[in-house]
């Protein structure tokens, strides 16, 4: 599962969301995405999604409470959770999700299955290998 924090006023977020949507569509059986809009009025997010529709749930973190709980200080930030819903990796930047092989991602997460590890930050190059 990918938990993706974003804001519609953040340019890299706006550019990244369609790629995340494409990943969600092509890996629909194996990768689930949840997006969380940080500190925005509802109607602005709704308007944005009318022009940039996505196929995954978009939640509203109006008071930044969830972002704070997850230690998010940069937008966009994406947490990659394993099948046990424990965070395995996070990316504190926009990311080229079109280049992700979802099978390879699942295999990478499966290597750590059953182990409890702190989430690691990843460079873009590591994720693309």
């Amino acid at each position, binding site marked *: 599962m990918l938990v993706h924090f974003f804001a519609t006023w953040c340019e890299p977020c706006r550019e990244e969301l369609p790629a995340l949507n494409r990943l969600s569509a092509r890996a629909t059986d194996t990768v689930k995405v949840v997006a969380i809009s940080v*500190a925005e009025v*509802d*109607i602005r997010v709704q308007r944005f999604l009318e022009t940039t529709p996505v196929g995954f749930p978009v939640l509203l973190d109006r*008071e930044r409470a969830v972002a704070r709980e997850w230690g998010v200080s*940069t937008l966009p930030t994406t947490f990659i959770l394993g099948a046990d819903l424990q965070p395995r990796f996070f990316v504190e930047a926009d990311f080229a999700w079109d280049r992700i092989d979802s099978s390879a991602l699942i295999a990478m997460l499966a290597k750590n299955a059953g182990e409890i590890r702190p989430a690691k930050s990843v460079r873009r190059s590591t994720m693309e290998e």
Partner: protein
Amino acid sequence: MHLDKRSFLKAGAAFTFAAGLPPFALAQGAFAPQPGSWRSFQVVTKLEVVKAEGKTQAWIPLPSVNEKDWFKSEGSEWTTNGAATKALDPKYGAEMLHVEWAESEKAPVVEVISKISTRDRAIDLSKAGTASIDLTAAERKFNTAGNELIPVDGIVKETSDKIVAGKQSEIEKVHAIYDWMIENTFRDAKVRGCGVGDIASMLKTGNLGGKCADLNALFVGLVRGANIPARDVYGIRVAPSKFGYKALGANSEIITKAQHCRSEVFLKGYGWVATDPADVRKVVLEEPPTNLSVNDPKVVAARQTLFGASEGNWLAYNFAHDVVLPGSKGPKLGFLMYPQAECGPSRLDCLDPDTFKYTIKSKELTAA
């Protein structure tokens, strides 16, 4: 994770060079606000909710600041087809007009007329401070504490400590932070990603560009991190600059988008001192012909003046943070500088003219 680490301590050399440049000669004379005659203004805010659905409410900031040397809030009147009450933020004393409309009202409207008086302010920091005023312990604690937008611990404290290292006096420390702001708070195109809205995330991401509220919040946070009282003052420009700066004034009677946040620091022996590093950056970005060098004479003059002085062409609404809007189901506001409204359970987008229309106009009642 890869973040572009920035060098946080660029200062000194550029400022030294700038000090050697000839003074900027404005047609209106030197950029030197001085306390003189008071100027009075009438500011009219008219708000309409275009697509009212469900119960509609609005909150309009009212001038609430009273500082005997430079600003007087002289009351507000209003007309509306809703029910209006004046509300007060209990922590900061920020006043706002809270208007509620019945669900049957399809064309909610309110017009507020506020009167203020203001004048230039200036303190000569080259002379020893002799004022006997001081803050109480409670006031000092209040104005050095953190809040949601402006934490003063962690990376904010670490950055402040680095900037003021080796500085002895309060003036030296604040000036070091002021200079650091001017040298470092610009939008770096190589830095991707945005902060989440508070100053710690600005520092963590290295994304130090932003509007006045972002930059002066960062300044206030860094000064508070050095245990020196500081505060933001949220307001709106009401007149052009008398000193010829296009970027530092409201250049028409319509001031709808002229909101501006200034800042102040409290220095022993001097009292509250005007400071505005955000406006120095605004001169860099917007003063014609725009994108000036930090060594441009216009910027150098603004930099010198806006540490200790400010022009009386601006209305001060309040000093408030973490504002709870009475009757609202929505989140707290980081600051109250714009009108706000909600239709049903949803807060309207105050930047969307299709649903939330307001105009603010300013008229001077007495000449300078």
